[in-house]
């Protein structure tokens, strides 16, 4: 198996989970109602948990650095998260739409890993299945609810979709270097296949919510994050996220 290719894929997945989890956790205490605040915070914790599992996989299986160090001390241009997850939270409509698009992308990805030739992926896929089922149930319920809650609400959801769709498509940027090796080794079906599975998954929900998905061919995915090219938003997020860790990088937690 190609370890460099595996490492690259795991870092992308883990960084997405970490940054998305951190962004969602910024809603803690500020959620629209108490029940939703708790639900959203709890799912943010799950995301951090997924990131941790992947960083541990790197550390234990592929000789990477310890999870905490790897997560908190890398410079910005070494992070491989997509632009979607680093965007500031904005209003709740934006955050919910991102949560919907990201979690359905996560679902198709982890489902595909059920059949991976890489055993740690198969085990992880099995472990997170129930959590992801719940996350997508939550996301779908909110999309339906808010898209049917009157004109203003509908308009905001459509606007949020328009703002996030190209960013979300950017999750599936194929790797120039490793894509073919990973597909050939049957590690996973590859980004392009996942992209199409994802479109098939989000489409019925959007139709049911009467939201308009732009013409697929007109979507220009926002790439770059996978190569360490980020928006300025990531730098400030990293500074805040690692603030406590950097007080004493040798401390044991």
């Amino acid at each position, binding site marked *: 198996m190609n370890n460099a290719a595996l490492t690259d894929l795991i870092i992308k997945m883990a960084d997405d989970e970490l940054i998305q989890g951190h962004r969602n956790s910024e809603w803690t205490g500020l959620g629209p109602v108490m029940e939703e605040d708790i639900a959203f915070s*709890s799912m943010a914790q799950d995301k951090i948990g997924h990131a941790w599992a992947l960083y541990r996989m790197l550390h234990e299986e592929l000789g990477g650095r310890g999870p905490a160090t790897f997560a908190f001390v890398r410079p910005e241009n070494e992070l491989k998260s997509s632009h979607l997850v680093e965007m500031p939270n904005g209003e709740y409509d934006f955050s919910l739409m991102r949560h919907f698009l990201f979690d359905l992308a996560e679902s198709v990805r982890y489902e595909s890993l059920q059949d991976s030739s890489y055993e740690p992926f198969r085990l992880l896929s099995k472990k997170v299945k129930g959590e992801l089922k719940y996350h997508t149930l939550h996301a779908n319920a909110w999309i339906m609810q808010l898209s049917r809650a009157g004109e203003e609400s509908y308009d905001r959801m459509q606007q949020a979709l328009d703002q996030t769709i190209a960013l979300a498509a950017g999750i599936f940027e194929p790797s120039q270097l490793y894509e073919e090796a990973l597909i050939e080794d049957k590690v996973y079906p590859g980004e392009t296949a996942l992209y199409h599975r994802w479109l098939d998954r989000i489409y019925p929900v959007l139709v049911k919510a009467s939201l308009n998905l732009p013409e697929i061919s007109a979507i220009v995915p926002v790439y770059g994050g996978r190569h360490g090219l980020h928006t300025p938003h990531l730098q400030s997020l990293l500074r805040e996220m690692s603030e406590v860790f950097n007080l004493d990088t040798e401390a044991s937690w």
Partner: protein
Amino acid sequence: MSNDSLDPRVNRLKLGPAGEVVKVEEGENWNIYEVFHQEKRGAHHEHVGCVHAPDPQLALVFAKEQFARRKKCVNLWVVKSADILAFDVEDEDMFANNMEKTYRDASGFKVMEKINKFKQSK
């Protein structure tokens, strides 16, 4: 009367008129859903509390978070609180038992004395 409060539990208390009547428009105000928790397959669903939610689906989502996060759980029910029919508080006297019916309180028979006597006789 039933529109006095958004919370059906408050209305059941019949606190009397309190200012303007509030009309609950479907979808406009969030409803209260009672939550029933099942600890294992085949066990009873037990009432554990309530959540505010805009529809039954989200009530389930919230119930999962509030009531199934720590305690073991295999299933949940949610029921709109307004759909529950209850006796009035002042009708509590219907449940009072007459003195001579105390035999109905029995939930079992006292047999330990007989068992102990039997054990001693062996």
